[in-house]
């Protein structure tokens, strides 16, 4: 007579519980459970240039990593600090030009110009974005949206930094292996570095700023200062991507401020799963090859990214990696009430 009422219950998997903290080394299964996904990712990225035959697709692999870096920067800012950056192109542009200048005007070799450009570019971007840091999120989005457009106008107008011709003759990497592995190792370092960072003290403060900035302020911590640090980290990553691109194509120009560099990381993060830094990388692994295949359709590919974004928002989807992580760590079952 009684109606059977059921609800869905979600529990951590046994293996997850068993692999917590020190017990992870108690047996091979637990260690593998924790290490397997990470090893697959690292090995996959490291082996990718070897497995892919045509030089064209090798180039696509490096572009995936570049957009992966940009996506990391966006994800970090949006989901760990609460600042939505609609202008990733700002960082690519600043970093690319900085690196070209360092290489040509200062005569520094590639291995010095890229790190220098990333750090210097990070400082420049942070200074540019400083006025809107004490304010709430929407201002940051608006200002980052505008900066790439205006900066490219300025370069054109004042005819500085090579104007519309750009800065040609930037030093290359001297070999496809160097090209691929420099960016892959940079991506892996940044990915795992950021993951570590968000669990350190600095990361916790930043996450606190995202959740409730008034509480952080009430604890006597300067919110603006920490936001500035976060913006510096994120724009350094973006500038690294830009500097790398300048050396990859041996040329730095206005197109480093292109809309592509702003939109694709956003779409990649949403698809891959926001809040899990690896999601941005996975997202760009999906989107970049897709965009190459869609090259015939011209600008329709940006419409396509936008449509995918809209689809995800309508379905209120959490993203690939969030879903995957949930499935990996937890299981669901029906339970009678």
């Amino acid at each position, binding site marked *: 007579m009684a109606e059977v009422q059921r609800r869905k219950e979600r529990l951590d998997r046994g293996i997850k519980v068993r692999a917590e903290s020190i017990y992870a080394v108690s047996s091979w299964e637990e260690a593998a459970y924790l290490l397997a996904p990470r090893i697959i990712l690292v090995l996959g990225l490291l082996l990718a240039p070897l497995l892919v035959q045509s030089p064209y697709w090798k180039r696509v692999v490096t572009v995936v990593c570049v957009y992966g870096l940009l996506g990391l920067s966006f994800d970090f800012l949006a989901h760990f600090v609460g600042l939505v950056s609609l202008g990733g192109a700002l960082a690519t542009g600043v970093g690319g030009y900085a690196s070209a200048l360092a290489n040509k005007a200062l005569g520094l070799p590639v291995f010095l110009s890229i790190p220098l450009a990333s750090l210097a570019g990070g400082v420049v971007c942070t200074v540019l974005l400083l006025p809107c840091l004490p304010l709430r*999120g929407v201002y940051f989005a*608006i200002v980052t949206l*505008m*900066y790439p457009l*205006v900066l490219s106008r300025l370069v054109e*107008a004042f005819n500085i930094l090579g104007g519309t011709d750009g800065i040609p003759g930037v030093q290359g990497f001297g070999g496809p292996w160097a090209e691929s592995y420099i960016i892959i190792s940079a991506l892996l370092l940044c990915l795992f570095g950021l993951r570590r960072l968000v669990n350190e003290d600095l990361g916790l403060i930043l996450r606190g700023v995202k959740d409730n*900035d008034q509480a952080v*302020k009430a604890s006597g911590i300067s919110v*603006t200062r920490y936001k500035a640090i976060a913006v510096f980290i994120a724009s350094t990553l973006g500038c690294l991507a830009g500097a790398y691109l300048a050396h990859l194509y041996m040329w730095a120009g206005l197109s480093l401020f292109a809309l592509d560099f702003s939109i694709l990381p956003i779409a990649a993060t949403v698809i891959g799963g926001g809040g899990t830094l690896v999601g941005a990388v996975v997202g760009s692994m999906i989107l970049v090859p897709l965009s190459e295949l869609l090259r015939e359709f011209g600008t329709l590919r940006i419409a396509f990214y936008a449509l995918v974004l809209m689809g995800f928002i309508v379905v209120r989807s959490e993203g690939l990696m969030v879903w995957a992580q949930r499935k990996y760590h937890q299981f669901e079952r029906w339970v009678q009430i």
Partner: protein
Amino acid sequence: MEIIVYGIVNSVSLALMALGFTLVYGISRLPNFAHGAFYILAGYLAWVGIRSLNMGYIVSVLLTILVVGILGMAMYRFFLIRVRGMPISEIIASYAMGLFILEALRWKGLKGMTFTLPVIYPGTIFLFDVPVDYQRLLVVAIGAGIVAGLWLFTKFTRLGLALRGIAQDEQAAMMLGIDSDAMATVATGLGSALAAVAAIVLLPLGNIVVEAGYQVLIFAVAVCIVGGLGSWAGAILASFIIGFAQILTVSYMQSHFQVVVALLAIILTLIAKPSGLFGRQKQLEERV
């Protein structure tokens, strides 16, 4: 003299572009980044009606305003409502929608000089020895008319008063039985319709190209930030300030500073008085 005449025209143009955006933000705190997209979409639909389907000017224009208004309402009701209250997602969502519309139109070929809208009344008159065409005069007239109309609407009609109520204090308005979501839908529809009117009046002065969509968005945002997000008087004052600043830079310096003026205005406002000239949103500041 030229500067005054063309300065006024430019300022009213900016105000027309920005009114829709500031309306939506003022009422439902929703930054509608698809504003520029609706502007260009309206231009395109009007073009289809007038040139392609030959439906006659008045019919096409009225139909366009109606369709774009309804699209705006639909965008809110079926799409943005799902991310209400999550600021990051709101921004990304409306930006994605705007991007989709603009890039799809660009793919369809909305560039170059082929797409133009006819002026409402052709001809030029000489005002104080400054040649001004009738279309520009109509821009000023229609702009003034719209502002007056909006003011009357929000002061004397039930719907307008309800919108003002939600803008002033959402909780209190809800307690009085005003449905916040319904008002937001109406506001978005109204904002989009205003974008459509702006398009129909301003696009005949140029071509219908997708770049104009991004430009309109930037100008609308600049005007709203300088004037204070959510304040209509502020938006109008800000559009005059920025409008005249632009004309002055074009006359006395090189014209590539035009867009820079908008950015500088934003940065200066954010540094000096973040809530804008007449802004009431003091909680947006959290200066430490």
